[in-house]
C-alpha cells in the first residue's frame, strides 16, 4: 500500500529574494575582506569616535571596562594562553582576523545603539583599535584594501577542532 506521496524536489513556497533586498541585509564581511564597503577611516578619527561613543563602556584606553577589554597588544614574552588562564584575551593577542572588528562593530556596537555608525566611522574606530593594539601605525588608513592586509599575530595559533569522541585520550 502506497506510503504517503514522496517529497517533491521543490514545493514552490516562499518568494524570490530581490538583489536590492539581499544587498541591504547581507553585510557580513569575509576574512579576505570580501564584503567590505567603500569608504575609509583614520586612527585620529577613530580616537575621537572611540572617546565619544565607546569609552564609557570599554574604558578610556580600551582596558578600563566596565565591559569587555578591547586592547591587549601581543608581546613576545607573554606565556601561551594554555599556561596562563588569567591572561587577558583581546584584539591584539587573540583575534585572528582584522576584518572581524569591522564586521562586529558595524552590526553590534555601540551596545546601546547597534548599527548606528557610518561605514567611515567603523573604518576609523577599527583603525584606532588596531593602533591601540599596536598592529598598525598612527597614520595608517583603513579601507577595503588595507584592512584585510593587516596580519593578526594570533592567526597562526588557530587550529580546527580535532575531537572525535570515542575512548581515545582526551583532547
Amino acid at each position: 500500500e502506497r506510503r504517503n506521496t514522496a517529497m517533491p524536489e521543490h514545493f514552490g513556497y516562499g518568494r524570490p529574494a530581490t538583489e536590492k533586498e539581499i544587498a541591504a541585509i547581507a553585510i557580513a564581511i569575509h576574512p579576505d575582506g570580501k564584503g567590505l564597503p567603500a569608504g575609509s577611516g583614520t586612527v585620529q578619527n577613530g580616537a575621537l569616535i572611540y572617546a565619544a561613543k565607546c569609552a564609557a563602556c570599554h574604558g578610556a584606553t580600551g582596558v578600563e571596562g566596565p565591559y569587555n577589554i578591547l586592547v591587549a597588544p601581543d608581546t613576545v614574552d607573554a606565556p601561551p594562553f594554555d599556561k596562563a588562564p588569567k591572561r587577558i584575551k583581546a584584539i591584539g593577542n587573540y583575534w585572528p582576523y582584522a576584518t572581524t572588528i569591522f564586521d562586529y562593530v558595524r552590526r553590534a556596537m555601540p551596545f546601546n545603539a547597534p548599527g548606528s555608525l557610518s561605514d567611515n566611522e567603523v573604518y576609523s574606530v577599527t583603525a584606532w583599535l588596531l593602533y591601540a593594539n599596536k598592529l598598525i601605525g598612527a597614520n595608517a588608513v583603513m579601507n577595503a584594501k588595507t584592512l584585510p592586509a593587516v596580519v593578526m599575530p594570533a592567526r597562526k595559533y588557530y587550529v580546527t577542532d580535532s575531537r572525535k569522541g570515542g575512548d581515545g585520550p582526551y583532547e
Partner: protein
Amino acid sequence: KMVQTGIPEAAFDPTRQVGPLPGVLGTRSPFEHPQRKPSLTSSQTPLQDLYGMITPSDLHFERHHAGVPAIDPNSYELMIHGMVDKPTVFSLADLKRFPSVSRICFIECSGNFRKPDKENITPQDICGLTSQSEWTGVMLSTLFREVGIHPKATWFLAEGSDAAVMTRSIPVSKGWEDAMIVYAQNGEAIRPQQGYPARLLLPGWEGNTSVKWIRRIELSDGPFMTREETSKYTEPVKDGKIRQFSFTMDARSIITYPAYPAQLQKGWVEIRGLAWSGRGKVQKVEISTDAGKTWNAARLQEPVLDKAHTYFRYLWQWNGDTTAIMSRAIDETGYVQPALQELFAARGLGTGYHLNPVTAWLIKRDGQVVYSPEKWK
C-alpha cells in the same frame, strides 16, 4: 472569559469547599516557585528542582547577546541566499507549510561550566545552561533542496535578528544532516526567549550555533570568521594553539538528587540525574558512591533518545558515613565523561568552553549534601 483565579494558599479542608472552576489557562500551585537564576547575559535552569527529561518552557535557560527581540510573526522572514540556485525569502507561514518534524533534544551553552568556588552551589549554578524540549519545525535539508545548494558551497552563515545581529558559520554537512528551522517548543509556538518565531536548531552542538530569531542563511565556500567563532567560542589548547569550530558538546552528566541543598536521611536513597551527549545516544551512566573508587551502572529512563537529556536513577543505601557520590556518562562512541583534571591535562589551563567534568557531591555525617571539589583524585 473565565480566568482561572489563583488557587488560595488556604489552610481549610479542601473536601468542604468547591474550588475554582475550569479556566482558559492553568496555573502553578502557589506553593511552587521554580525559577531561573538570571545574570545580564544568561539565566540558568533549576535542574535540581526538575523531574524527568522535559524542561518547562518558561524555565529553559537563556544566553543572549543583546536581550530578547520583539518580532511580529506576520512580518517575519527568513532569507536563504548566496551560493544557491534560487535566493528565496520564506514567511513563517511558508516555513510551516513544509513537511514538519518533531524531535526531543537538548540545547547546551558551550560555556555551561561554572568552576565552583564554594561548597554551597547547586546543579543550577554549576550546569544550568542546558535544557531540553520537544522541538517542531522543518528540516534545513528540505529548505536546502527548495533553494538548490551549489556543490561548491561548503559553509553557511546563520544570522539572527536580535540587536547583536549574531552570526555563526556552520558547515553545510550539518545542514544536510539533522539541522532544523524550528518554530514550536513543547507543543506550542517557540518562546521569545528561545527564538520566536523561528530559530536554527543544530542538535548536539553548542547552543550559540543554534542561532535564535534567525533571519538569514548565506551559503558560502568558507567560514566568515565572525566574532562569535574567533574572539568567543574558541578555546586555547596545548602548545599555544587556539581551537576553533569546536561545535559538538561532549558527553556529560550531573547528579541532581541528592545534590546541594538536599538533606539526606540514612537508609535508601535513589540517586537521580541527567546525562547527555552531542555525539548521539547515552550508552551508559556509571555512579560512584565511594569517592570514585568503584563505579556501577545506573538505570536509564527509556526511551533513550539521540542527542537528548537522559534521566538516570541508581538505588543506594547511605549508612551515615561521609562519602562523595558522582556520575559519569558514556556515549555511543565509547567516550567517557572526564574529570576536570583530565581536561586540563589534555588542553592546558586556558580553556573556558566545552568543560564537561564529572561533578561530585560530598555527603557529610549530618546528611548535608554539598559540592565536592576534585581533591579526592
